């Protein structure tokens, strides 16, 4: 276990103390998860999407550090009122990181994971409906690949250490 200084900025601290749009959404149109408790880093997004494919509301749950909570919270605010297409195209991990006022570099992956979870949710919305919009790439985006990689790493590590890995 290595340690690095983590001088979180005031915005991250504020979102950690007062997260917006927190909690499970009972009437969510779609939900998606990225990460794994074994990584110490896991996010669930709940999206309520209307017939015009606009995100009416979004909420989250986060098993993770202050940066994980802050980036998840900010994503739910950034995507509210956006079409799924705009959310897909405009929300990148870099923008999320900027929006929380920057993160220590070792915590960049938290923003990446948050966007990975968002993209999974959007993909799931369409795959649930057997739709393939032309703007939605078949190939996984950077953030989705990173989420997969983080999940795989945790599994591999658990296997290598011969401990009972988490599901």
């Amino acid at each position: 276990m290595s340690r690095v200084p983590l001088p979180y900025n005031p915005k991250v601290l504020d979102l950690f103390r007062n997260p917006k749009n927190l909690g499970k959404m009972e009437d969510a149109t779609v939900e998606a998860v990225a990460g794994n408790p074994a990584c110490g880093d896991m996010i669930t997004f709940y999206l309520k999407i209307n017939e015009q494919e606009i995100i009416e509301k979004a909420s989250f749950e986060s098993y993770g550090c202050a940066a994980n909570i802050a980036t998840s919270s900010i994503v739910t605010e950034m995507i509210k009122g956006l079409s799924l297409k705009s959310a897909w195209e405009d929300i990148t991990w870099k923008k999320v990181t900027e929006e929380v006022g920057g993160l220590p570099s070792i915590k960049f992956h938290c923003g990446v994971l948050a966007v990975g979870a968002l993209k999974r949710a959007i993909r799931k919305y369409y795959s649930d409906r057997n739709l393939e919009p032309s703007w939605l790439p078949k190939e996984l985006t950077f953030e989705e690949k990173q989420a997969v990689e983080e999940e795989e790493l945790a599994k591999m590590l658990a296997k290598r250490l011969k401990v009972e890995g988490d599901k």
Partner: protein
Amino acid sequence: MVENVKELLKAHEGITHEVYLDNENSSMVPQEVLDAMTPYYNQRAYGNPTLTHKPGWEAFETIMESAQKISRFMGAKILEEITFTPGETEANNLALMGAAFAMKSKGKKIVISEIEPINVLHVVELLQKFGFATTKIPVDTQGFIDLAKLEEAIDKETILVSVSAANNEIGTVQPVKEVVDIVKAKNSSTLFHTDASDAYGRMPLNVQDLKVDMATVSSYKILGPRGIGALYVREGISLDRILEGQIGTQKLWPGIENTPLIVGFTKASELAFQNFEANVNRMRTLRDKLVDGIFNELSDVKLNGPKGDKRVPDNANISFLRCEGEALTIELSLKGIYVSSGSACSRRLLQPSHVLVAIGRRFSEAHGSILMKTTRYHTEEDITYVLEVLPNAVKRIRGIVGSTGVD
């Protein structure tokens, strides 16, 4: 980035009660210790102990008397068996590297437990580059070393074994005497080192009774100043130096001795060993109140490490399920309670505390772990305050986690 920290500190304004429990990672230094040290910066013994003038001779006298006291507290035979180093890390580096290089003609095998401190793990990793091979002996679910596997691992080529007397994270007290007997019965020339930093001042410790060849102790772990520790090396054992420079009063560690820190370390030791029983009982009573209180208030919590007299009296290490540790440390800090976590929420460093993994904790349990250590300076009120705040802090973080952390 320092601007951010100023803001973080501002967020702590208005805290009315502070309880520092992160004594694993650093500690406050009592005023009595500071008062003992101060004169040695500018009033006496500020000279170099190898030089022929009064401040030098004063320093020599002070260092020798300090070494004498530390040697008595550790149960060593003579003061020359004590080498002051800048801390536990350096003492462990000296013990392991110094012994490995001195013994390299006899073999290249080193044996440690899986739950040795990070510095020991890193030193043996470094030694691999010089052709030394390390076997790590597993521990059980409470952190006790597997004695059968240990015995199996020792052979003619084994030059060095290092097993901590008490684990720094989960407080497990190892049966050091038994471990030494097993090692020496298989190979009488194998050197045995123990990092006793977490045992010193907390439980009876006598290097001669334990028959260890080397033992590390650390000042800050007994509320002395940081930057000083000591390595006991039994008379007759010769280690290689691992640093070169001007040799002063200590042949194993070059550079000018830091007299004020040595005085502070010695004073902290005296305070720990004066009223030893009472000090230990106080740490234990407060620790037990803390742990029992947490278990009464919260469900889904697990104690990491053993219960009872096989656990050092100050250590409380608890996993809060469905709760991420780093988030909890920040939440508690904002309420004036300072603790550390075995979590590791950082890219590519997914592995949480190796100690918790070694005792079979799931990763998610390790990520939700909090380490706290009580001292004789804590009060009943401190623990009562922690028990008022901590359950609510855990509940708030669990509220953010929701169903996401359920596995």
